């Protein structure tokens, strides 16, 4: 290649606190190329985009744009340098019309400048026509469907005249028809010499669209290949790479009776369909899959947050309809949610209040609260789960991530559940606390609890689970034994056969 690449990243490093999200990424993008970026959840793709679009400053390495090294990139300068990004979640103003949105996004005029709305409207019409979208420029964005909003985002990127367009999972919410439009736009951009960074979990899209593919793993680039020279199995091997270290506590006893049984379970509003599996007492049933596979959605069905509209849930031999979290709790289902800072632990309240939040009726059978009983129970759990804190009165917000997770877990253990659903229990938790949580989960299973473990951490879900249900596209794609080959799990998650 004779001219300098449009974008060149060398040894890019980005740390969030103590977490190293990018640890030396090399990447380059040429004009007129579609360069796919592939990697597991947490491999560093989103961080890479944030650095390139100027949203976050890197801690090391260089960014070179068309031969010029740039530093101190901000979202505004990134845009001025011709970098546009289409995010998974459209970032539009819902109360403004399509034309107004495009006008605001494409040129930020000086506040005193007069807006020429007829020009804006004409341009919006032109851009929408160019991508083949049948959307009125006068429609309020609020009234558009998710895929239509995504198309407006694409029109923005197109109209900005950007020379580098980043697409982050652009097809995640698109239907077949709009995907087709999108692919047309990508090819159109390539023909016009634009460089496209294309991020997707869908391998078939990468093979259909991309010229080259770079695989990220654990914050590092592990290889760039021409798409023509690699196959699916090769890509999966690059994505997974490592062996699963045998640091996970093993099951010591055979699982007991079936606790939970799902049959053809589905919920149209959250996109889950046709999920069937059993979980036994003493068993850890892992749910693997990529972001958007429908695992959290399934958990929310089981906890009565988004009730199922088809199929059956059987708990301890009894068919259940779960319409509220109260019903789920009453039947012995506990759900430790994914976002513990937002939903798991109330940061403003003391540990003791957090812990007894779900068990008031049992702990305080008489009307009055009994602080002594509450304190004793809290101390028990603090000791049992080794929560590091100054005491039951310490506020949730004063704890580290791992200890918050333990409090969130303790709240649900205190309900004496039959079924425990853990959603990403070790996300953002340091290594030491992670292994402690693994031991706790294994011990709970040994004590006869049925556990559903949702985790995007592939080694974790493979190492800790007795069986692994792999989800994708809102349904269960496969059930694999614990300790399976990660390549097989990844292939099932991607919907291919390795």
């Amino acid at each position, binding site marked *: 290649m004779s001219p300098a690449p449009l974008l060149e990243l060398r040894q890019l490093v980005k740390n969030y606190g103590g977490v190293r999200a990018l640890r030396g990424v090399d990447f380059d993008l040429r004009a007129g190329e579609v360069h796919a970026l592939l990697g597991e959840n947490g491999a560093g793709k989103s961080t890479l985009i944030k650095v390139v679009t100027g949203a976050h400053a890197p801690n090391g390495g260089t960014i070179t744009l068309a031969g010029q090294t740039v530093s101190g990139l901000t979202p505004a300068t990134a845009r001025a340098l011709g970098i546009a990004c289409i995010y998974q979640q459209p970032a539009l103003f819902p109360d403004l019309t399509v034309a107004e949105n495009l006008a605001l996004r494409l040129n930020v005029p000086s506040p005193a400048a007069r807006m020429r709305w007829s020009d804006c409207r004409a341009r919006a019409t032109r851009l929408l026509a160019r991508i083949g979208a049948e959307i009125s420029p006068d429609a309020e964005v609020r009234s558009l469907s998710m895929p239509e909003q995504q198309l407006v985002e694409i029109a923005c990127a197109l109209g900005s005249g950007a020379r580098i367009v980043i697409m982050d999972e652009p097809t995640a919410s698109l239907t077949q028809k709009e995907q087709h439009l999108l692919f047309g736009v990508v090819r159109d951009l390539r023909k016009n010499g634009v460089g496209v960074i294309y991020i997707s979990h869908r391998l078939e899209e990468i093979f259909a669209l991309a010229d080259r593919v770079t695989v990220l793993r654990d914050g590092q680039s592990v290889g760039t290949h021409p798409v023509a020279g690699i196959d699916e199995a090769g890509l999966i091997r690059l994505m997974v790479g490592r062996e699963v270290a045998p640091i996970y506590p093993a099951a010591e006893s055979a699982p007991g009776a079936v606790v939970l049984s799902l049959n053809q379970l589905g919920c149209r509003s959250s996109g889950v369909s046709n999920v069937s599996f059993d979980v036994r007492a003493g068993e850890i049933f892992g749910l693997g899959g990529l972001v958007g596979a429908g695992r959290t959605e399934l958990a929310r069905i089981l906890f009565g*947050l988004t009730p199922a509209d088809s199929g059956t849930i059987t708990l301890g031999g009894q068919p259940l309809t779960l319409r509220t*979290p109260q019903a*789920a709790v009453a039947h012995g289902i506990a759900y430790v949610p994914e976002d513990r800072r*937002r939903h798991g632990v109330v*940061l*403003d309240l003391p540990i003791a*209040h957090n812990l007894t*939040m779900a068990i*008031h009726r049992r702990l305080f059978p008489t009307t*009055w609260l009994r602080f002594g009983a509450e304190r004793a129970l809290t101390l028990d759990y603090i000791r049992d789960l080794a929560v590091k804190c100054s005491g039951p009165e310490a506020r949730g917000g004063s704890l580290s991530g791992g200890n918050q997770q333990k409090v969130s877990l303790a709240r649900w253990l205190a309900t004496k559940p039959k079924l425990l659903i853990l959603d990403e229990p070790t996300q953002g938790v340091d290594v030491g606390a992670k292994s402690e949580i693994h031991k706790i989960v294994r011990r709970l299973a040994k004590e006869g609890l049925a556990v559903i473990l949702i985790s995007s951490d592939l080694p974790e879900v493979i190492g800790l689970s007795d069986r692994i249900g792999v989800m994708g596209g809102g349904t269960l794609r496969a059930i694999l034994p614990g300790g399976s080959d990660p390549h097989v799990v990844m292939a099932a998650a991607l919907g291919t056969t390795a």
Partner: protein
Amino acid sequence: MKRYFRELSVLGALGAILLGLAIFAPAFYQPQPLLSLLTREAPTLVVACGVALVIVCRQIDISVGSIFSVCSVCAGLLAARGWPLLLVLPASVALGAVFGAFNGVLVAGLRLPSIVVTLATMVTLRQGLNLVRQGEFVNLPEGIQWFGLGQTTGQLVLVISSVVILILLALAMRHLAAGRFIYAVGTDAEAARLAGIRPQLVTFLVFVSIGALTGLAAMMNLAQSPQVQPLTGHGLELKVIAAVVVGGVAISGGRGNLWGAFAGLLLLACISPALTHLRIEAYWEKAIQGTIILLAVVADGLRSRKGGN
């Protein structure tokens, strides 16, 4: 100690004013004027307790003044038609609770913002009352004023019952699961929901409670004069919200307690008589109250910024 620093600092300010008055204007401590002051504030205290619950639950209710007016006038009319006190009192409480339930349905059921809902209720009730009553006074029959107990006894009954209500509610907030639920919902409604609490039900019941308390307060006010004025309860909402905020109940919900609200109310209520006794022009009252509110809000702002990280 550190946990109740905010409440204690309000108490400290109140103590300083009371001490200053003891030195410079001992006349303030004559029993009869003091009892009258506390009696005047007794209904306000009851409403303030309700507003504190609402604010802890991360909502607001600015319709209390109008509900107070409507309850007063309706109770007065019932009394004038010869209803006995023992029926008028529960009727007023029930009427208040109905208005509160109306707000509650809109806020909790339809998830509308409480500031808008209660603004609408406030304006509608106020104007509706003006339209129907045309500014007429309601003359009360004998035996309603001071509950027919004579002035001093009646005043004592009112002051004591308002404090009893405060104590009961404060205990409930701390020692009943229901209190916990209000704090939990006010801090993080989604987390509360995921813990099996029903945030919408909690919010609804909090609005019913404030309505009922306002109806009760209306009765406590009614018993203090021979007539019901059409403008009664005007501006009450601002007075109680100010008292509650000064007392350290965070407007962002989940923080503060009724004792603080009590101290805040007394602090603001002392300003006016203090000025009179110190022979300072009464025009300063609002300015000083405003300054106190600002100080309290700034203190909370600084504190939450420090605590936020």
